[in-house]
């Protein structure tokens, strides 16, 4: 399905400890900086880092993508994108991120973190240049690497919100262990939306047929 792009950030600008006026950090989370035309963590505090784009809020069916230039797999590090995120300061939203052995989909509700899905994935040699994206349509969540679907799941906790970037660097890591660039976000054109839950499938057809619905 085609994506309708509403905003891009190639991160090409002067070094700054702030990502820029259109990006919002979160209380209790690490913030990002611009260094060498890349997004990097400001600090390594064992806190999840995230920033969201505060411009156009996309439709509830939305997507976000970011290119991971570098992710150091020698320490516990992950990096990816966020969708349907709350405005600061409550950390609530969905995320998809890559770490050493897998790509996962998770959710934060009031800062409480739940992993919803995971698929094995081996991070390539540095520089990785991995394009990670997450689509949310209705209650369906689907994560991609280089536009190839890797894992999907379903959750109904969060209906709307912002898009952004996320990362985590654990003890022993440095703020050079995650480098991101080429963020993009948007929604879907009406003609290209996912078919959604009423599309097909034997169980659905059975449900529609009435055999499982009381």
């Amino acid at each position, binding site marked *: 399905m085609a994506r309708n792009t509403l905003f891009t950030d190639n991160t090409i600008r002067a070094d700054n400890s702030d990502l820029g006026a259109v990006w919002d950090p979160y209380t209790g989370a690490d913030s990002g900086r611009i260094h060498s035309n890349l997004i990097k963590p400001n600090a390594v505090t064992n806190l999840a880092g995230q920033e969201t784009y505060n411009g156009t809020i996309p439709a509830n069916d939305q997507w976000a993508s970011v290119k991971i230039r570098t992710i150091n797999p020698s320490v516990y590090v992950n990096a990816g994108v966020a969708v349907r995120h709350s405005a600061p300061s409550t950390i609530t939203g969905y995320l998809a991120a890559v770490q050493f052995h897998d790509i996962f989909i998770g959710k934060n509700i009031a800062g409480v973190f739940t992993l919803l899905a995971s698929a094995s994935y081996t991070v390539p040699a540095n520089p990785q240049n991995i394009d990670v994206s997450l689509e949310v349509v209705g*209650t369906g969540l689907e994560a991609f690497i280089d536009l190839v679907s890797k894992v999907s799941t379903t959750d109904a906790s969060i209906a709307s919100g912002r898009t952004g970037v996320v990362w985590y660097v654990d003890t022993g890591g440095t703020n050079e262990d995650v480098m991101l660039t080429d963020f993009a976000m948007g929604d879907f054109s009406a003609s290209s939306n996912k078919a959604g839950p009423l599309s097909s499938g034997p169980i659905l057809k059975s449900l529609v047929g009435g055999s499982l619905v009381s």
Partner: protein
Amino acid sequence: MFIEVPIIGTGTQRDPYRPKLPQGVAYSSYIPTGKDGHPVLTKCLVCVPDALPVPADGKFFAKEEAVLSIKGRDASIDVTKFKVPGAAAVEVIRGA
């Protein structure tokens, strides 16, 4: 296949709530949470590759049974897709 397994974790970045599965297993789970972010149930339904042995503390479901289990727990649940590599996808929608 679809199995029901316990939910483990504390909800932190390093110890997130997650299905109790062997490390490295690909999965897709359904974990309803409350407004405080904590799971509302102690177990969750998980789709895993068919080749995975059912964990000792897990419970196997056939597809239809899995659907009925979900619907029986919360009629407001709208389950649209569980899909992982090596497992069949299933699509359902609430009947209530």
